[in-house]
């Protein structure tokens, strides 16, 4: 059995990779993927702590995060597609107005 800190550090590394992805990429689709990566990093630490505390509560949180992530992807991709329809351009640096 690995110590809990090993899983938590793994989770910290994946979370930071997601943060860097959000900061350096210009493509909103890849920014979305980086956000999914951060959510998954947090899920890993939830499952690790749940296993360490011998309680199912952490797994419940993972289940709820999964649902929120699915809802977020549906709405977010819908927004990206509708921005692409009106502007023919999905560079995040260009998206500085709310007008269509």
């Amino acid at each position: 059995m690995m110590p809990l800190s090993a899983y938590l550090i793994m989770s910290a590394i994946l979370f930071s990779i997601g943060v860097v992805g959000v900061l350096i990429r210009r493509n909103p689709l890849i920014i979305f993927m980086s956000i999914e990566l951060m959510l998954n990093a947090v899920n890993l630490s939830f499952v690790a702590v749940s296993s360490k505390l011998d309680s199912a509560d952490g797994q419940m949180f993972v289940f709820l995060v999964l649902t929120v992530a699915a809802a977020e992807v549906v709405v977010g991709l819908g927004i990206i597609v509708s921005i692409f329809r009106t502007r023919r351009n999905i560079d995040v640096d260009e998206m500085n107005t709310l007008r269509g």
Partner: protein
Amino acid sequence: MTATQLAFFVLAVASTASALGVIIFKNAVHCALSLILTFLFLALFYLQLGALFIAIVQVLIYAGAIMVLFLFVVTMLASETDETELRDHIPWQRWVASILGVVLVGVLSYLLFTGTPVGGSAVTTGANSLSHVVNTQGNTQAFGLALFHGFAFPFEVTSLLIVVAILGAMVLGRKA
């Protein structure tokens, strides 16, 4: 080094490499495939931690459903996604962000090692503990019991969230 440790380190290196692939690859389809690989490695981590149901859900929902949605949109916008990477308005942003990422790993690890250790009296024991329920009733049963006994209200609120998301997607997706 035991087999568990070896498996952990192989998985750790593989998932870090595939996660780096998500933010390094130029082509958005390669990024999406790399992310699917990361999700599969995370499912293996969950298996190692004994969370069988979460591992299966991870593969079915995340690596399956959510990433299929992503790939649909990536292929739909494929003509646009390669070009946008060329226009970089702030050239130093990449290096500063990478350095800040390393700093973030350092700070999080520092906090993990200096914080109060998890465990002690917080560990559930006896008939309520997860391992006991898993051993007597099974993994999915343990998950379902915990979900519908302690988390029934959040579970019901989740259905409201999904309805709102479906309505939002329909509003955004209809022909303007």
